[in-house]
């Protein structure tokens, strides 16, 4: 009966346009925010993944780079290198620093580029110098563009005037971005004399990693967190920020989609009540009629989904080039669950029309 469903839909072009538009809007909304979430989650993980470490050693209780402060005395390094199975232990210093520039608040996550230990270098430098010299800083290109900071400009990072020497990429997350200064400059900005934020530990090739970790954690002052776990802890911050927004938009999207589909299919069912009565009279079963209505809803929803998904892809591609903060990744998995939601929504919103359909009395068709 799909052909009847499609013919009925196409017959009423305006109504079809409204229902497809409504669903497309919902899908665009949900898919964009989901893509943004995924994009930012990836970005934050991307940099941390490039940092060479099997374990991140944090101050006890600290689980990530942002939420929980972690300060460790440099002397911990001696302890770590003494633990059997540890190959290397290098300090990693970095923290969020906020300051105002040209009347705008800027949030950088300043990392000490420790060339001596080969730790804390930018993941990718796209313009200018790859390694900062004294008095210099490398910032993310996104910040450079959005805050109009050019290479050669001087910015006041926590009271110190630093000259922007290069642009890196892939370090922009939500409201802040990674920036890289020399070890000495970073230590004075971060105010870490004789201390660091984390140690990066690599494990000897044939050592049992978890055994090494538990030997490290024998020291009550530190925690050893696997690289994967640390990446996850950090991306969870993005998740925690986004999940409520995604949920709200999901609810709005579902409400809009259901209302639009439900109302258009309902009015069309009422308008066609007589025709459905005729179909009942000539022997179309109730179940077949319900199928027609559900197929109408689902067809409109699928069309809406396709339009919405195409728009979301177009918007994220276009926005990405004009608004660098707009980093999106629309995964197949997300496209699939959003499709699932759309489908279920269409089926649920045809329940009301189906109930109306059940009440149509075929004997009415003999009344003129």
């Amino acid at each position, binding site marked *: *009966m799909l*052909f*009847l469903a499609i*013919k*009925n839909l*196409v*017959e009423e072009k305006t109504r079809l346009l409204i229902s497809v538009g409504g669903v497309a809007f919902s899908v665009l909304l949900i898919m964009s925010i989901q893509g943004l979430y995924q994009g930012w989650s990836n970005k934050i993980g991307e940099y941390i993944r490039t940092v060479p470490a099997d374990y991140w050693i944090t101050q006890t209780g600290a689980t990530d780079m942002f939420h929980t402060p972690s300060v460790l005395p440099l002397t911990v390094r001696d302890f770590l290198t003494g633990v059997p199975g540890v190959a290397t232990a290098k300090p990693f210093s970095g923290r969020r620093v906020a300051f105002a520039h040209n009347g705008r608040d800027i949030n950088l996550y300043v990392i000490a580029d420790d060339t001596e230990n080969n730790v804390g270098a930018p993941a990718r430098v796209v313009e200018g110098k790859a390694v900062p010299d004294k008095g210099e800083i490398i910032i993310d290109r996104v910040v450079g563009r959005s805050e109009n900071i050019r290479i050669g400009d001087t910015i006041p990072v926590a009271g110190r005037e630093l000259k922007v020497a290069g642009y890196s990429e892939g370090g922009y997350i939500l409201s802040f971005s990674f920036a890289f200064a020399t070890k000495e400059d970073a230590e004075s900005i971060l105010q870490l004399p004789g201390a660091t934020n984390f140690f990066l530990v690599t494990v000897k090739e044939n050592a049992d990693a978890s055994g090494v970790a538990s030997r490290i954690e024998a020291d009550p002052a530190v925690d050893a967190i696997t690289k994967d776990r640390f990446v996850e802890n950090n991306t969870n911050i993005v998740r925690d920020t986004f999940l409520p927004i995604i949920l709200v938009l999901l609810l709005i999207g579902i409400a809009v989609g259901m209302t639009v589909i439900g109302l258009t299919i309902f009015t069309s069912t009422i308008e066609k009540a*007589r*025709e459905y009565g*005729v*179909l*009942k*009279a*000539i*022997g*179309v*079963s*109730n*179940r*077949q009629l319900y199928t027609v209505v559900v197929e109408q809803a689902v067809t409109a929803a699928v069309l809406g989904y396709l339009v919405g998904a195409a728009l979301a892809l177009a918007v994220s591609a276009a926005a990405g080039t004009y608004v660098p903060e707009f980093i999106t990744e629309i995964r197949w998995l997300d496209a699939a669950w959003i499709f699932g939601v759309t489908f279920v929504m269409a089926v649920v919103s045809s329940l009301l029309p189906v109930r109306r359909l059940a009440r149509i*009395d*075929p*004997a009415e*068709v*003999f*009344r*003129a």
Partner: protein
Amino acid sequence: MNVVAVQDVSKTFGAGHTAVTAVDHVSLNVDAGDIVLIMGPSGSGKTTLLSMIGTLMSPTTGRILISGQDTSTLAPAQLSRLRLQEFGFVFQTFNLLSALTAEENVMMPLITAGVPRKEARAKARTALEQLQLGHRLRNLPRDLSGGEKQRVAIARSLANDPRLILADEPTANLDAKTGQDVTLLLCETACRENRAVIIVSHDQRLRTAAKRVITIEDGRLTAEEAGDHNLNCRMHPESVQS
């Protein structure tokens, strides 16, 4: 066996002192090849009787057998099946589906019965061609004249090879000449294939086609006479080969 056996059927609407007995102890048998014209004043219960025979409404008392099957024993889904396979309906207001072309309207009962699309299309086309509508296959109902619409409706009613065709005032929305032509066409087609037809109408001229003319007044059958049955019931040359 009778195609239809109406056995002492009554239908009462409402209850208490507002109750209306629309059909009052009616018995009637219809056989294959019968063309029955039911006449009677407005409000006499013609449509109610037809609706009960068509299983769209159940009698208050009495039984209706279709090909020997007591319809009161059937579940709604079985009644749907029965209507799809045994009945063709023709209505005063044509009742075509507005979104479908003439051809697709005729295909509807076939597709509902599970006939594959291609086959259904071919059958619909043949049926419409036999009713001189070969040039109107792709037209929507709104582009058809009243007479053309009713011919499409007739083709639809015949699609599943029904044993019985039920028509309520098929001429009322057509001008006199077209109404008569279309109804004669229906009767001829039915009679050629030995189907039974029950037509409710005020139109006296349909007596020429009818084999039996039944009068109903106040819900009761009051008279039955023979009609002229002046029809060409021989097979059309083009349908002989099939």
